[in-house]
């Protein structure tokens, strides 16, 4: 087991990845508290924090804007803010900030496809998380952004988000559909029209009209989307970003972790740290097992030991499989984190 701070100096972004139900958000928040105590100015961007976690941080609700956590009780040199992702609000902000005119803003916000996109269909919140990451990373109040990503598979919508959004408004079909207005060769346009007619047969003409209207509404914003996407992609691929895998020694969680690690690898990214949460007895070997126990207690103890041993094997297997050099083991808590003191119990185990 490693000790010392889990984060190397010079890290500006930590991306926490893991399945649902392993305590990922708590880990992100506890890491935020730990780093703030080391003097960093931290903002944790979370997707959907549990009520109790917000209570534990002394926040009476999450907001799109970053809110400061009062850390006087834990004597922190740095600071901690928490921001919750509101995809629709972020998308609206992005449009307002980067559209060429008020008229363009109105046209986009009124488009049915845009409204449908922001109404929570798959993927949009992840595109928006990357826009928020860019903003928070550029914010002079913070020197460390910790992102609590959506569970498992959707984390990769987040990693792919910047590029997808750029491709979306910069698509060659969109450009060829708009070609006549831009004066590109008629021959290109004829092919595009054929494609559009075929799509119309498949999905219906009015949806295509809306889609074309949507792309047209974004005219002139494509360069901005592309530049910002490149910026976020470079940040994520740079040594200033660390990927932290958060898991638990449960079968379902393991399969998800393997899947996540494989996907990171395909993107040329490597996790720096594996946090194993909710371990039954991470310090099993240190327990003195001599002496008699009442039989019911002894039975329960033996069962726990079998579980802990199985977990230890899983953890060892995971470390080998993922090739992660830095392991942080966190014991299962007796009760959910209820306040900053509880948060510190987790933060201390994280190192």
């Amino acid at each position, binding site marked *: 087991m490693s000790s010392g701070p889990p984060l190397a100096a010079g890290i500006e972004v930590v991306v926490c990845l893991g399945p649902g139900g392993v305590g990922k958000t708590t880990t992100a928040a506890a890491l935020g508290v730990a780093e703030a105590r080391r003097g960093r100015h931290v903002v944790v961007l979370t997707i959907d924090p549990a009520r109790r976690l917000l209570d534990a941080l002394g926040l009476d609700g999450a907001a799109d804007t970053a809110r400061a956590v009062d850390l006087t009780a834990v004597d922190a040199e740095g600071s901690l803010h928490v921001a919750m992702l509101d995809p629709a609000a972020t998308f609206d902000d992005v449009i307002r900030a980067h559209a060429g005119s008020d008229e363009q803003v109105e046209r986009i916000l009124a488009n049915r496809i845009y409204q*449908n996109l922001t109404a929570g*269909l798959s993927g949009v919140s992840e595109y928006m998380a990357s826009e928020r990451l860019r903003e928070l990373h550029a914010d002079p109040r913070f020197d460390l952004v910790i992102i609590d990503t959506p569970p498992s598979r959707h984390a990769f919508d987040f990693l792919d988000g910047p590029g997808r959004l750029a491709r979306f408004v910069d698509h060659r079909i969109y450009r060829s559909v708009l070609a006549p207005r831009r004066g590109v060769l008629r021959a290109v346009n004829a092919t595009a029209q054929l494609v559009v007619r*075929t799509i119309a047969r498949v999905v*219906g003409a009015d*949806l295509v009209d809306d889609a074309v209207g949507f792309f047209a509404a974004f005219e002139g914003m494509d360069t901005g989307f592309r530049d910002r996407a490149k910026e976020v992609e470079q940040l994520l691929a740079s040594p200033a970003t660390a990927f932290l895998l958060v898991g638990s020694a449960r079968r379902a969680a393991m399969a998800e972790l393997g899947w996540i690690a494989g996907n990171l690898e395909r993107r040329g990214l490597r996790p720096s740290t594996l946090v194993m949460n909710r371990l039954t007895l991470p310090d099993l070997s240190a327990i003195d097992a001599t002496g008699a*126990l*009442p039989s019911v*207690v002894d039975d329960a103890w033996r069962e726990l030991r079998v579980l802990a041993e199985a977990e230890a094997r899983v953890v060892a297997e995971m470390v080998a499989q993922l090739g992660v050099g830095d392991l942080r083991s966190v014991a299962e808590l007796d009760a959910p984190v209820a306040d900053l003191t509880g948060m510190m119990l987790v933060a201390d185990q994280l190192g």
Partner: protein
Amino acid sequence: MTFVEFCDASRVVLVAGKGGVGKTTVGVALADAAARAGRNVLLLELEGHSDAGRTFGVETLVYESTALPLDPDAADRPGHIDGRHLAPDDALLDYLGGHGLLATAGRLLTTGAIEVITTAAPGIRDLLALGKVRSLADEGVADLIVVDAPASGHARSFLNAPAHLAATAASGPVRQQADAALEFLADPSSIRVMLVTLPEETPVNETIETAFALDDDVGVALGPIVVNAVVRPPDGLAEALARADHTDARVGAVAAHLERSHEQRAQIQRLSGETGLPIVELSRRSTVMLDAADRRALGEQLAHGLGGPAA
């Protein structure tokens, strides 16, 4: 309701839950139990590759149906289980083929035209996948189709796709698909959703929210909620602990374990109270990969919880 009645109540059971709660395990256990009860089952994997196939000794499920072997000592006349994987583009290509557009489909994919449409209206892939599930049910490919659904935040947008698209497309083929899907989802004899969760605060909150959202926005029938990995301390443990030496680290560990089981109990009660849905509990296991014996044992627990024993 007996377990057999549960199997026959809906043609499709969609198993949904956050990643990591054991959704695939529950889907596999349900398929196993239903087959032992004599039903022919199709286990359909919708998103990403899970371990569903591997628990039957099949490395990955593919688009074509693969027979998944039950163990040799299965009951006298068990049903069989087939497994299939349905990737988003599979449903799309099927749909284009069904509309006489297979020749164009390749070109639509290579020119990126499909990407434009699916990005602008991302629910289309989900809608077509749901349409594929519906047509498999209509074709009667199995007595019961068990769908390993996308993770639950996504399951919500997955099941909401027809309503969103019906609102976006006023007419045309997408609208027809959306209307048909809405009708399918609203019919409990066609499909029900079985949510899977863990007895912990965040997963329980998320499950309560999902249950209400599915009920309000989609109107799909909800089956019992399956709570996975429930700890069951032996009877009389609290009394025995009261007499034990608490300076012994083992006693401390057991006491903490008992404490957690009480917290689990409280979460299960909250889940039950707030959703009003029946709860089926599966106990926590110490094995890591699901083998045939585990699958069977879990199937039996599930069948027992859902009704009578599987036999």
